[in-house]
């Protein structure tokens, strides 16, 4: 117990210091890209409107932008923004001749080829591509001289709930680690006229509070027990345009290039927007399910969300902690705070606790030369050593992990705390090798992924394989809250080797293929297909501290439902993520690549191998491109309109036979209400009058 309490304090203090450094991170942002050292003038982002609807299990984000070309030549717009976590782009619409034209999904190379051909021919075209795990890039051509172009992008993603707190991130901030991109492109991230961010939360469970940290000007309004709205908007002001905009070749002065410094921008797209919502405390552990099965005789899709209420006790035995810290060049400016955090953490340790500190950039070095007992002299010595390090150079993550895993003692439970903001770009970079490395020892990896440019898919996979958990952190996050949630997970038991078995009804294509460990406060999200209808037995199994645990329930799979067609895309994207894990592990194989392309085209998703292409309607016809995504979108829009008109129904399915006996974990605080203050004021008046009378 005492070991445990020291451990907790060490972790909490250390994480607090690490995460406080996020505020100092040098960043790029979402924005319009122009090649550096180019004579091409820059376009403007006139308006940027975001509309988010969160309905329990998933979020739909609509982004509408208007680009302006104030110059006298037609230009191409290239807009880049970070890939949101587990998000699938479902719609890309370009307004052509004042009418919206939605994109279709094609194989990446083919889509790009057609886009280039249309661009060369001067016809309207748009392309949305995915640059790995880093960014989505939208290209639109032409943005005609003196005119505007409007686009809309829609993406869908599962919602992240942890310890009763939901978190939505609208990513705008890049991690600043893509050095090639930094060198090549200049980024215009200013929204000139109007920025608008609206989020509508519709929860079947009551929601106590909604927050958007760091945005005190945002309006947060509650509509009902489970419905909230967040609105953040701003308008810009710009000087009057220059009078003479005639083309230089005609003898006129060139039009002044847009200079953000000359105008008061409505908004700068450089910081993530993070929205939290908190469910009412004491909600039971439960199973929720959303299905889509328009035809009773055919296959349906389900999304099952299991919120455990398990008895996970604090870990009593001692553990060895190895801190593996990224000190590559992108961490400059944050290191002083990191060092301070390490010092504070070390000071809290007892003499029989053990720690190691490994630093890595292009190579890995160990400060501690094996395990160190936390005596006051050693603590002071290594605290000073940590403070003297200067970050720089590349990121050799493999070397850092390998060094961290060396000399692990089998008789003690060990854990690695990895903190990184970047991409492995030095040394071994193959994902398979990382997995093999971690498999060599029985060790848990707890990863703190900082910013939007880290290789999240790989880091999450490695963490999952080891039985740990990964936490994504934004500079805009409520760091204190995230720390408390993370440290609570680390210092408590977890359900390891988690499996979900469904019997009684035919199911297939379950994703994700592997769930791994479920820590305190986490949910299990499962997608799959099913046939028929009727009662199913659902069993969650795993081990807590070596002891087998079984949680089970029974509920019906419906014969026909039409309300949530979007979950077909969510299933497809989850399956694609499984396939991408395989590709990253074993290398690209034709069958897996083709499977991703097929899924991307069938379900209208932008992936590493498929892109969204918009051309004129007649060009779709002449090029024989089927309008499958357009049809899918029509179905989804109809369903969304129907859902909008009514409150979110409870999606809980295990009411009759609850899977868990305990409620889900939560936090609490002692708060005097304004009503009580008034009561106390009354008491004050009465008492003082009494005394005066005395």
């Amino acid at each position, binding site marked *: 117990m005492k070991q445990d309490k020291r451990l907790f304090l060490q972790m909490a203090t250390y994480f607090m210091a690490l995460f406080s450094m996020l505020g100092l991170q040098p960043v790029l942002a979402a924005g319009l890209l122009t090649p550096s050292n180019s004579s091409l003038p820059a376009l403007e982002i006139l308006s940027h409107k975001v509309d988010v609807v969160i309905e329990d299990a998933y979020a739909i984000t609509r982004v509408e932008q208007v680009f302006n070309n104030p110059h006298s030549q037609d230009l191409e717009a290239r807009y880049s923004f970070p890939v949101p976590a587990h998000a699938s782009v479902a719609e890309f619409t370009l307004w052509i001749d004042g009418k919206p034209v939605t994109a279709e999904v094609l194989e990446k190379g083919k889509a790009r080829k057609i886009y280039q051909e249309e661009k060369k021919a001067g016809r309207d075209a748009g392309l949305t591509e995915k640059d790995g795990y880093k960014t989505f890039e939208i290209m639109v051509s032409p943005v005609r001289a003196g005119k505007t172009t409007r686009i809309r992008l829609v993406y869908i993603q599962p919602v992240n709930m942890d310890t009763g707190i939901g978190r939505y991130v609208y990513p705008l901030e890049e991690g600043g680690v893509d050095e090639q991109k930094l060198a090549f492109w200049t980024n215009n991230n200013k929204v000139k006229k109007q920025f608008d961010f609206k989020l509508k939360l519709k929860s079947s469970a009551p929601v106590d509070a909604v927050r958007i940290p760091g945005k005190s000007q945002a309006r947060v309004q509650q509509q009902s027990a489970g419905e909230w709205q967040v609105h953040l908007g701003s308008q810009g002001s710009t000087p009057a345009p220059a009078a003479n905009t005639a083309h230089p070749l005609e003898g006129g002065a060139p039009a002044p290039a847009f200079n953000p410094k000359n105008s008061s921008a409505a908004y700068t797209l450089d910081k993530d927007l993070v929205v939290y919502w908190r469910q009412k405390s004491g909600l039971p552990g439960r199973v929720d399910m959303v299905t889509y099965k328009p035809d009773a005789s055919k296959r349906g899709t389900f999304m099952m969300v299991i919120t455990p209420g398990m008895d996970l006790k604090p870990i009593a035995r001692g553990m060895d902690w190895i801190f593996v810290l990224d000190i590559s060049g992108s961490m400059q400016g944050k290191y002083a705070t990191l060092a301070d955090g390490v010092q504070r953490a070390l000071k809290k340790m007892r003499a029989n606790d053990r720690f190691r500190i490994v630093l890595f950039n292009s190579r890995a070095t160990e400060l501690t030369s094996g395990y160190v007992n936390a005596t006051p002299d050693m603590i002071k010595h290594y605290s000073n050593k940590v403070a003297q390090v200067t970050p720089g150079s590349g990121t050799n993550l493999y070397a850092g992990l390998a060094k961290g895993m060396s000399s692990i003692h089998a008789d003690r439970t060990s854990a690695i705390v990895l903190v990184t903001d970047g991409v492995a770009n030095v040394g071994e970079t193959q994902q398979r090798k990382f997995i093999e490395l971690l498999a060599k020892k029985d060790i848990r990896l707890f990863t703190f992924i900082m910013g939007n440019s880290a290789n999240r898919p790989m880091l999450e996979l490695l963490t999952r394989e080891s039985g740990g958990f990964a936490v994504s952190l934004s500079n805009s996050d409520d760091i204190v809250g995230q720390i408390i949630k993370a440290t609570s997970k680390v210092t408590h038991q977890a359900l390891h080797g988690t499996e979900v078995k469904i019997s009684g009804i035919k199911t297939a294509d379950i994703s994700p293929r592997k769930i791994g460990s479920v820590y305190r406060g986490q949910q299990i999200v499962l997608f799959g297909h099913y046939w028929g209808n009727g009662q199913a037995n659902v069993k969650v199994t795993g081990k807590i501290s070596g002891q087998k645990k079984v949680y089970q329930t029974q509920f019906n799979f419906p014969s026909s439902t039409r309300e949530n067609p979007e979950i077909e895309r969510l299933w497809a994207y989850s399956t694609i993520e499984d396939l991408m894990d395989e590709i990253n592990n074993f290398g690209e194989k034709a069958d897996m690549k083709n499977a991703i392309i097929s899924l991307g085209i069938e379900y209208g998703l932008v992936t590493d191998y498929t892109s969204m292409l918009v051309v004129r309607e007649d060009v779709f016809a002449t090029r024989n491109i089927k309008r499958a995504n357009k049809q899918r979108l029509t179905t989804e829009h109809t369903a969304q309109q129907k859902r909008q008109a009514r409150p979110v129904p409870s999606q809980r399915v295990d009411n009759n036979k609850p899977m868990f006996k305990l409620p889900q974990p939560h936090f609490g*605080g002692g708060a005097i209400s304004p009503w009580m203050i008034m009561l106390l004021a009354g008491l004050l008046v009465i008492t003082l009058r009494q005394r005066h009378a005395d």
Partner: protein
Amino acid sequence: MSDYTFSQTIHGNKSLPWITLGLFIFAALLYLTVGAAPSSLVYLTDQPLVEWYRIFTGHWVHSDIEHASLNLIALLILGVVFEPVLKKRVLSVLLFSSLAVSIWTGFLAPDLKAYCGLSGILNSLLVYGCLTLWKQYQQKIYLLFILLAATKTIVEITSQQAMFSHTSWPAIPQAHLIGMLAGAIQFYLTERRT
């Protein structure tokens, strides 16, 4: 009878509620220096014996500015009302109720992970102080205050919804009730002793 008067408070003299003022400044400075819900000081109700001092420090830190402001205003009012009568017993009431609320949140509250905030122990001071004033002045109005506060708390518990306060960490009205009970028990024990 106390020689404390309202005019003396305004013009300032040694009859000011110094203990309360000291506690107020302490809590305010704590919030300003360590910030919201510092993980090193909150009470870890899922590890109730972790670092024993958290049993007490958890009550003196807050989850956000609204939480801190409301609780500190309440502390000031209660201090002005009760300290002239209770004097140093203010400290023993707060100490005893810290233990009581921490025992409940740490061992009996279902699945609470962490707790912070003054209001649990302030409710204890409210009940103890009102009972003391009721005994002193023999006026039932002081019992009415206790009844009103208890009713609000019981309504919150039964409806499972905090009335009027929306802080970052949800209010735990059960902690208020435990604080009230602790205040009542302490009053009873004090009366028995005297």
